[in-house]
C-alpha cells in the first residue's frame, strides 16, 4: 500500500497509541512512549511488522504510545494507513492483510 495523504488513528488515552502516517520518499518510524525504555524495541518491531504486512515501503510513521498492547498498536497502524488511502470504512480485508 502507498500512503497517499496524512492520516491519524488512535488517542492519547492510557493503553492506547496515536499513530500518524505521512507520505514520504523513504520509510521512517519514530516512537515515543511512556514505557520506551522497557518496550521501545518491541513497539518498533510490531509497527515494522505491521507495515511490512501492509506492504508499506515508504512514509513517515509517528507513534505516540501510551502503554498499548500489541493488538492495539496493530489496529492503530492499520487504521491510519487505510485512512490515508480512504479505504478504512468499507470492504476491509478482515483476516486477509488485516490479521
Amino acid at each position, binding site marked *: 500500500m502507498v500512503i497517499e495523504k496524512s492520516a491519524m488513528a488512535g488517542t492519547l488515552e492510557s493503553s492506547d497509541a496515536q499513530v500518524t502516517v505521512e507520505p514520504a520518499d523513504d520509510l521512517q518510524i519514530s516512537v515515543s512512549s511512556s514505557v520506551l525504555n522497557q518496550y521501545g524495541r518491541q513497539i518498533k518491531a510490531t509497527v515494522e511488522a505491521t507495515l511490512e504486512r501492509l506492504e508499506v515501503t515508504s512514509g513517515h510513521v509517528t507513534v505516540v504510545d501510551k502503554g498499548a498492547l500489541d493488538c492495539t498498536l496493530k489496529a492503530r497502524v492499520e487504521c491510519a494507513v487505510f485512512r490515508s488511502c480512504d479505504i478504512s470504512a*468499507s470492504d476491509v480485508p478482515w483476516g486477509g492483510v488485516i490479521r
Partner: protein
Amino acid sequence: MTQHVTRPKPEKNRLRRTMMFMNAQKPGLIKDAYIYGADTIMLDLEDAVAESQKDAARFSLYHALTTIDYGDTEVLVRINGLDTPHWQEDIRVAVAGGADGIRIAKCESAQDVKTVEEHILMAEREFGIEEGRTLIMAALESARGVVNAYEICTASDRLFGVALAGGDFRKDMRVKVTESGIDIMVARGMMLLAARAAGVQCFDTNFADFKNMEGFENEVRQNHQMGFDGKSIINPRQIRLVHQVFTPSAKEVDHAERLVRAYNEQASAGVGVFTFEGKMVDIAHVRDAQDLLKLAKASGVYHGDL
C-alpha cells in the same frame, strides 16, 4: 502468522444474567473486560463510538476478538442501526473476528432481523466461518419495536433473545425515568410476553444512575420478579448484585432437588399428581424445579446429578 483465539461454538440458550457494555474503540476497556465476571460482554460499535471513529473501532474490535482470550464469557457486538452507513461493515468485522453474536440496535420489525441475518450469512461465507454460528439478539428501542416484539422474536433461528433499550424508548414515548418503573412497565410486560411466547430470552435495559445502588437493587429485584433472564449493565460494580438476585439461593436449590427426586421416584411408579411435603405437586412445578436446577448449575451453585 498471528496466533488466533478460537472461541467455542456459541450456545443459543446459555446463562446471560449480565451483559456489560464496552466501547470497542477504547483499548483500555476491552483488553481486560472479562475479568469482572459478567456473563456476556457487549463490544459496542454504536452509541459509545463517535461518528468519526467508526472505522477505527472496527480495527480495534477485530484484533480484540482474535487476540484476547475471553474464556467462557460470551462476546457479542452491538452494530450500528440499519438506518446508518455503518452496519454492513460492522457485521463483516464481527463475523470475521468470530464474535458469538450480533445485537441489532433499534430493531423494529421481523424484516430488520432477516436483513441482518442475510448479511451475517454472506459474511460467514466470505470469511469461511461455520454457517449459522453467529447468533442474533434484537434491541427494541421504539414503540414500533415493542409492538412488533413477537414477529421479531420469531424472525430467525439464530435469535436468542430481545432486550429493551430504555434511553431511546423513553424518548419515543415522551416519558422520563421513574423510580417505580411505571414509565416502561407496559413495554417490559409486552416484550416479556412476546419473548416467552416465542421461547427466547428477555433482557431489561440498563440502569444509568450507577451511583444509586438502592434504586438499582429495587429495579433488579423487580426485573427478576417479572421474569427477565438478565440485564444490561454499564459498570462492573453492578455485576455482583444482578448475579446475586438472578442466582437461586441454597434453600431454593435444596427444595428443587428434593422435589425432582421425589417426582422421579413417583414417575417410575406411574403417578402423575402427587403430594410433596404436604403440598400437591403437578408436572408444572417439576418443570419449574428442573429449570431452577439448570440455572443453578449454570451459575455454579449446584453440582448434583439432576
